[in-house]
């Protein structure tokens, strides 16, 4: 979200030079009420957010230690012997990679086509609408759809054909493909917003120098919307990390990552595993509830991961903007 890039200066002067500001004490009651409500809303959301993280930490504190991140889960009937969650962690990372690698190019290309070309316009509307429809689809529907598709014989190489003859249909590729559908809309929207906000004079200058439209896109526009793409990727990745239904249905929920076949790399993609969200789901009261504190510890780790990811991408986006020297969306002319 370019909103979360550094606040644009655009003619806004430092507070000391703003002149006499009216103090809230001189406002009408209605305005003061709105001021109070705005402050409450903003700070209230912060408190809720902090509360969620702290509560998960408090609940999982018994088992919360860094060792959990590096030990593999084990089957055991007692929580103290059931190991850590290395495999679910790797599963989450793997799913995210697959999802973004599939969604990224597709989303950016669609956004470019819509924003820069988009002819005929009814076709552009169809593409935009279909991506918005995907955004509004519940993840469980995508999971059911994915399950039906990947259990067809055609897609047997993407999971595995069991010794009984049927196609298993659940694998990292299957889940990753559906995850890419989840990540597509935010990335598409962010890129399209960024492209639409690039000032016209940049394009016109490139044309004046003799560049074709596609070259302009590649050399001028794409670099200038890099922070938007980064924001979109963060949003997409957050949605992938947080998704439960697709993982439950399409990943097989095996405790360890179980590879399939003998081609290194591809065998993991074709294999089954679990992710942090399915680990939390299965072990917390949402599922069997057999290892609740471990599940809360995993949930806490998940929240920290998401927070770290957000901060990281924010940092990258900001440093890119500075290095580009470009002032992005907002019409700072």
């Amino acid at each position, binding site marked *: 979200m370019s909103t979360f890039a550094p606040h644009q200066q655009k003619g806004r002067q430092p507070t000391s030079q703003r002149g006499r500001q009216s103090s809230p004490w001189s406002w009408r009651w209605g305005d003061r009420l709105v001021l109070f409500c705005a402050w409450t809303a903003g700070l209230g959301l912060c408190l809720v957010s902090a509360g969620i993280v702290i509560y998960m930490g408090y609940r999982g504190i018994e088992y919360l230690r860094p060792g959990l991140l590096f030990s593999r889960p084990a*089957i*055991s*009937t007692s929580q103290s012997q059931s190991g850590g969650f290395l495999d679910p962690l*790797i599963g989450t990372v*793997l799913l995210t*990679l697959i999802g973004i690698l599939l969604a990224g190019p597709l989303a950016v290309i669609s956004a470019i086509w819509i924003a820069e070309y988009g002819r005929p316009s009814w076709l552009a509307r169809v593409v935009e609408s279909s991506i918005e429809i995907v955004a509004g689809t519940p993840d469980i529907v995508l999971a059911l759809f994915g399950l039906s598709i990947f*259990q067809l014989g055609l897609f047997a190489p993407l999971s595995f054909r*069991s*010794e*009984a*003859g*049927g*196609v*298993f*249909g*659940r694998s990292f590729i299957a889940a990753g493909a559906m995850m890419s559908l989840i990540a597509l809309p935010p990335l598409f929207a962010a890129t399209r917003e960024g492209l639409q906000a690039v000032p016209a004079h940049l394009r016109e200058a490139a044309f004046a120098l003799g560049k074709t439209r596609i070259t302009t896109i590649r050399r001028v526009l794409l670099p200038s919307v890099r922070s938007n793409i980064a924001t979109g990727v963060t949003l997409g990745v957050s949605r992938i990390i947080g998704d439960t239904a697709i993982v*439950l*249905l399409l990943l*097989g*929920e*095996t*405790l360890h*990552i*179980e*590879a*399939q*076949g*003998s081609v*290194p*790399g591809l*065998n*993991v*993609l074709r*294999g*089954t595993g679990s992710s942090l969200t399915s680990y939390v789901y*299965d072990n*917390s*009261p*949402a*599922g*069997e*509830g*057999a290892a*609740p504190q471990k599940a809360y510890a995993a949930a806490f780790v998940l929240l920290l991961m998401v927070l770290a990811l957000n901060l990281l991408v924010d940092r990258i986006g900001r440093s890119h903007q500075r290095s580009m020297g470009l002032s992005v969306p907002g019409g700072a002319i």
Partner: protein
Amino acid sequence: MNRIRRLSVALTIASALGVAAPVAASAIPTISISGATASYPLVSLLAQKYVKLKPHKVKFKIAQGGAQIGINDVASSRVSIGDSSRGPLEPPAPPAGLLFTPIAKYAICVVTNKSNPLSNLSQAELESIFTGKTRSWGQVPGATASGTVDLISRTSVAGVLTSFQTLLLGGKSVSKLASEESSEGLLRQAVENDPNGIGFLSNYAASLGTVHSVGYNGVACNKATATSEQYTGVARFYEVTLHQPKGFVASFINWITKSAAARKIIASQWIPLS
């Protein structure tokens, strides 16, 4: 990003994938299993032991998804064995040709909140509560709670619900007033938090100490009474196969039902068949 950086990123990803993958042995047959989350720990422990005892004979791939999904998978030949927490439907609803082999027993206990330590319920009392005839705790002898009875049940796809209705309710259905939870954990959580709650769980979940388990027809519900067959509300975990199992699948199932090592594993937390 210049080309060298692109290549190195691609190489890093590829090597990470390679490292994450355990080295796959070739040509060992795989037994694929899918099904109930309730029996997943049991079947995983059994498979682990089997591989330890007979190394390099078979590999296992055990997925979860739910008893119903396991049965469907077996019926469509997507897996060799399905784990089920309920027996075959009567009359046997097709897909025909499914063979249910019991491997372990578990007791179904009626549970109430810890603040309501009801010691016993007869079958008639239980039926009247769960079919919605008795709606207030004041009418239940021995209950210390007061107010409305909050029935907490499972969704109709759950195997435990079918077993509960057949074994403890005499075949009657749970009232439509009951709220349906979709997993054992959620049911246990609901009963834990609601002083007026009453539900049903497997004996393991009931013995975790957060809810009170109620006696049935004068018999307490725990592993001992279930093993000695005093407690009548005992359901089974089944391994479902399409027709008679053959080959290594058959040897695995035979090992589970007959060997002493398997019996020891089952007895640790569940109830062996004999």
